[in-house]
C-alpha cells in the first residue's frame, strides 16, 4: 500500500525548486536549445502535485500557467488551462504513479505531458490563430526526460523507494 510520502518536500524545498525552475526559464535560450527546452516550471509543479498534493495544487498550477502565457503564450489562459488539466491527470493517476520506478513513471508521465502540450496547441489554435508548426509538441519529450532525471536523482538521494519511508 503506497501512502503519501510526507517525508520529502517541506515548504522551503518546494519554493526553492519552483524558484529554480522559474530562473532556468528566464535564461536567454535560443536556437535548438530553445525549441527543445523543457518546461521546467510545469515539471516542477506536476512533481510536487504527485508528492505533495495537499500543498501544491490547482491554484499554483493556474498561476504559473498565467506566467507561462505571458512568456510564450498567444493569449492569457492557454497554458493555465493546460497546466490545470495536467494537475488533474496526475491527481487521477497518483496512487498508480507512485508505485513505479523512475523509468516507468516517466513513461507513464509522457502521455500526460503530451496532453498538456496538445491543449496549449488547441487553445491557441481555437482562440487566436493556427500555430507555425507542431514544434509545440517537442517539449513533451524533453519534459519526460527531465522527469526521468529528477525521479532518478530522487531515488538515488533517498535510497530505495520514497514510499517505503513514509
Amino acid at each position: 500500500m503506497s501512502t503519501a510520502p510526507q517525508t520529502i518536500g517541506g515548504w522551503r524545498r518546494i519554493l526553492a525548486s519552483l524558484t529554480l525552475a522559474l530562473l532556468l526559464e528566464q535564461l536567454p535560450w535560443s536556437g535548438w536549445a530553445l525549441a527543445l527546452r523543457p518546461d521546467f516550471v510545469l515539471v516542477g509543479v506536476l512533481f510536487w502535485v504527485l508528492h505533495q498534493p495537499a500543498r501544491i495544487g490547482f491554484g499554483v498550477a493556474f498561476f504559473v500557467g498565467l506566467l507561462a502565457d505571458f512568456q510564450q503564450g498567444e493569449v492569457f489562459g492557454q497554458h493555465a488551462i493546460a497546466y490545470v488539466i495536467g494537475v488533474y491527470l496526475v491527481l487521477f493517476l497518483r496512487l498508480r504513479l507512485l508505485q513505479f520506478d523512475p523509468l516507468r513513471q516517466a513513461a507513464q508521465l509522457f502521455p500526460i505531458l503530451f496532453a498538456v502540450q496538445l491543449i496549449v496547441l488547441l487553445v491557441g489554435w481555437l482562440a487566436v490563430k493556427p500555430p507555425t508548426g507542431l514544434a509545440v509538441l517537442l517539449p513533451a519529450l524533453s519534459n519526460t526526460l527531465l522527469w526521468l532525471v529528477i525521479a532518478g536523482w530522487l531515488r538515488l538521494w533517498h535510497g530505495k523507494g520514497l514510499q517505503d519511508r513514509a
Partner: protein
Amino acid sequence: MATPGQLMFARRLGPTARLLIWLAVGVSCVVVDVRYHALDGLRSGFSVLLLPVREMMRAPSDVAAELGGFFTRHRLLQNERDALLAERARLAIGANAAQELVRENTELRALLQMQTRPGQQVVHAALLYQGHDWFAQRITLDQGDQAGLHSGLPVVDASGLVGQVSRVYPGSSEVTLVSSPEQLTPVFVERTGQRGLAAGSGRGQMELRYMPTHADIRPGDRLLTSGIDRVYPAGVPVARVSGVSRPQSSPYLRVECVPLAGLDRSRAVLVLVAVPQLALPQAARPRATSP
C-alpha cells in the same frame, strides 16, 4: 482506507469539481483577453515582475561572451582593426558626398516647398528574452516606454529590418519579427522596382505574396521596404529571394525569401522613433514610391 494524510469524510471539493472551476476561470481568461483585451495590465505586471530576473539571468551568457572575447587571438584583432580602418576611410568619402547631397536636397525641397522626411531618432536596445515561437515569433527588448517607445515602431539591426514593436511595458517591450506568420511588410524588388507584400511564413522564413506569374523576379534579388505604409522608412533591406516556383494550383508565383537581419543572432538592435514634424499642407506631395 483512510491514510493519515487523508480525511475519511472529505469536506473539500473533489478534484473534478476543482478542475471544472479552474477550467471556467481559464476559459473566461481567454475570452476576456481575446475579445476585450482587458488583461494588458496583468501583462505589464508580469513584465515588471520578471524584468529584474531576466536582467540577472542574462549575466551568465554575458560573462561567457566576455571570456570568449578575452581569449580572441591578438592577430585576429589586428586584422580586424586594419580592415575597419580601411572601411572607415572609404565610408568617410561616402559620408562627405552624402552631406553634400543632403544640403542640395534640402535646398531643392525648400524650393519646392515640400515637407522633408520626418527626422529619425534611434533608441538602442538589447535582446532581453526570447520565448518559444509556437504561434508568433517575438523577442523582448530591454527598453520600454520610458525610452519613448510605442507599439508600431520599426526595429532594425545592422543588416536589415528586424520587426515591429508590438507591445510596450515599463522597462521592456515586445517585438514581432518580420518572419512571424501574418506579419506583413510592404516591400519592393531592388532590381526592378516592383512592389509587393512580404509576409512571414514561420520557422524564420518569409514569402513574397501575390506576385503575378509574369513578374520578373529571380533568386538573389533583394527586397527593400517601400515606405508606402508610412510605418517603415523606405529603403531598409528586408529579405533576399531564395527560390521562385510556379505552383499549378495558384495564379501567383511562390517566392521564398530569407530575412537579411540576424533575427536569431543579433543581440543589439535599433528602434527607429520618428519625430513628428510640423504639419505642412500635404497637397501636391509627389513621392517616388506612389503608385
